[in-house]
């Protein structure tokens, strides 16, 4: 007759740009040590879990005895720092075998690192990681932009209302159904100074991010002076994308791959070399002569 214990709702993986993530300066720890740590971002995200699709630009093994990997993942607004150590074996193996630059999708948890000098660094500890591609990244940028704009609007409305305390909470309840977001918005408004300016700046960053993905797709035009823009993809990644695109489960003929790769600006020799690399890496195979299949 006991009530069935309610399964804890899974925590949302928030969509946050690295720019916003890195400028967060409020941290909450609820109760005991095992309770999750949260960072409160300027748009009021009470963030533990987050989801990122970006470009890995740097991988360093910084561990002395055991492996600890520090990885930089860029989005159009900046860079996330990822640490993967012995307790994230899957991610550690993934990074140890990865060549930069590469599109990756990562689910992780926000971490705070405080070295003794008083500075604070925010990083992400991976839970799940996988390869991704340009299109998935572009969709992530747009979704993250949309979610962030919604949050900015909520905070701006709250600031304009001039309300505080319980009245502000009542006001926010009309706009927000998610309790974590409600809670986070209250904390952010209390904590961040000059929040209206910060949000204005964030809007500019978001506009820029959307523009970077709305350029003619297919051809990457790096913006002048934008250091975080991913460099041109390796030929084999281009090939992998082509095979991935064309193989609907039945395989694709060799000659067709070469034909399309040449259109994309790769010469026959590069194609052949890159294909061999892909096969060596086990990312595609040749079940029959003149037939390629993705793995």
């Amino acid at each position, binding site marked *: 007759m006991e009530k069935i214990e309610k*399964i804890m709702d899974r925590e949302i993986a928030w969509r946050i740009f690295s720019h916003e993530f890195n400028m967060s300066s409020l941290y909450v720890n609820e109760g005991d040590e095992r309770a999750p740590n949260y960072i409160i971002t300027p748009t009021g995200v009470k963030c533990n879990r987050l989801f990122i699709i970006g470009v890995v630009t740097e991988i360093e093994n910084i561990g002395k005895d055991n492996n600890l990997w520090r990885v930089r993942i860029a989005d159009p607004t900046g860079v996330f720092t990822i640490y993967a150590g012995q307790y994230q074996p899957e991610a550690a193996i993934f990074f140890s075998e990865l060549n930069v630059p590469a599109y990756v999708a990562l689910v992780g948890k926000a971490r705070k690192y405080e070295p003794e000098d008083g500075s604070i660094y925010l990083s992400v500890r991976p839970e799940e990681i996988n390869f991704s591609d340009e299109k998935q990244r572009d969709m992530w940028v747009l979704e993250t932009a949309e979610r962030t704009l919604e949050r900015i609007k909520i905070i701006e409305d709250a600031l304009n209302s001039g309300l505080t305390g319980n009245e502000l909470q009542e006001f926010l309840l009309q706009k927000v159904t998610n309790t974590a977001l409600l809670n986070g918005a209250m904390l952010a408004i209390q904590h961040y100074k000059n929040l209206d300016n910060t949000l204005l700046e964030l809007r500019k960053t*978001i*506009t820029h991010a959307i523009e970077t993905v709305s350029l003619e797709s297919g051809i990457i035009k790096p913006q002048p002076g934008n250091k975080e823009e991913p460099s041109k993809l390796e030929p084999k990644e281009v090939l992998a994308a082509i095979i991935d695109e064309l193989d609907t489960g039945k395989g694709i003929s060799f000659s067709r791959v070469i034909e399309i790769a040449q259109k994309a600006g790769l010469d026959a020799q590069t194609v052949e070399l890159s294909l061999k690399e892909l096969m060596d890496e086990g990312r595609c195979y040749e079940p029959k002569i003149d037939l390629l299949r993705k793995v």
Partner: protein
Amino acid sequence: MEIEFAPHIEDIKRALDNEIEEENIIADLKKLLEYRVPINEAKRSLIKKYGGSEKSAARKLKDIRIGERNIDITGQVIEITEKTVNIKNIEKTLFSGIIGDETSSRSFTAWLDFDLNPGDVISVTQAYVKNWKEQPEVNFGPRSKVTKLNIKIQLPEDFELKKLSELRDGDINVHTQFTILNIEVIYINTKDGSRKILGGIVADEDTKLPITSWVLLPELAAGNTIEVKNTYVRSFRGVPTLNINESSVVTKLEKKLEYMEKEGLRIGDVIIKEGAYDIVVEGNILSIRPGSGLISRCPECSRVIQKNICRMHGKVDEIKDMRIKAIIDDGTGALTLVLDSRLTQKICGITIEEAQKITKTAVSHKAVEDDIKRKLLGRRFAARGNMSKGEFGITLVAVDAWEPPGTIQEQAQQLLGRIAG
């Protein structure tokens, strides 16, 4: 000292119908209080010791609160269904339904067979109130006495027209409108033998909902637009279902409600509902749960089994199957997406035979799960199906799943326009 607990003594005496000597009660109560037993517990145990029962208090349904015990309810049984539940591996039959009085209606559970039928007006003593889906639910247990009354109860009149999206499990006197998309005769087994009912799908402008009609009415035909009054809502397989019975008023309308599927539903808005029928959600696959990939099922009961042993049917010849249980998340909420072998094959491109080959070659049970992970994790997918909530959390069992086309240019322009505006 005696003055201090005099009112409590009075309470106890009343509960015991004044049949016990006051001195005995005082002596017992003093003793318990010396042991620092809280006064409420002391009273309760004394009443029990002398064979009395705490006097229960009459309550209207709108006033009941979760956790209340010993309450008296008078109301009309609106609907009742026999259910079999499994508690600690013991099968138990109980009765669940809706009861209404002048003030409100609530779901109820009767843990014994009180021979209740829809329409019965009953008085129940010693009922208690439990939490069911964050709502108070009346429970009738072994100590409850149920008496059938020969009176009429004026149920609250609720003529406010509701949208299908507003309907919740346990709603009674529902007044709504819909167009019937499809409907058919279903034969069900009841304790009075086989019975014909109607089952179908209806829709208004933005919501689809299953309906069950316990009466065979000619108005209930596909394509007709219907206004109903005095219907009720019960969840069936986790999805709110509209029920039409003998006391419902059914009128055919000379208009049509055009259903338009809601696009861009947010998972965060979906999961605050009790359940949803035939919806589309879109998000990223953020986790492939254990138990995905190649699995074995019992040929008798389809339970997932290991090593050819079913816990109900013993040693059996397993049937191979594939499925994916994944977390899909769009940044507003997350739910568990379940894909069967057909959809697993559609989005991963592997057949059951290929999956078996992969498992054999890799000599690992997890090979197929790992393959699925590589193909899906982090990617954006859309899925259609019914959302329900249960002991395994919030689940959408997919009837279709696909990779959305991703109109990046369009969306980017739209967002830029929104920022500028």
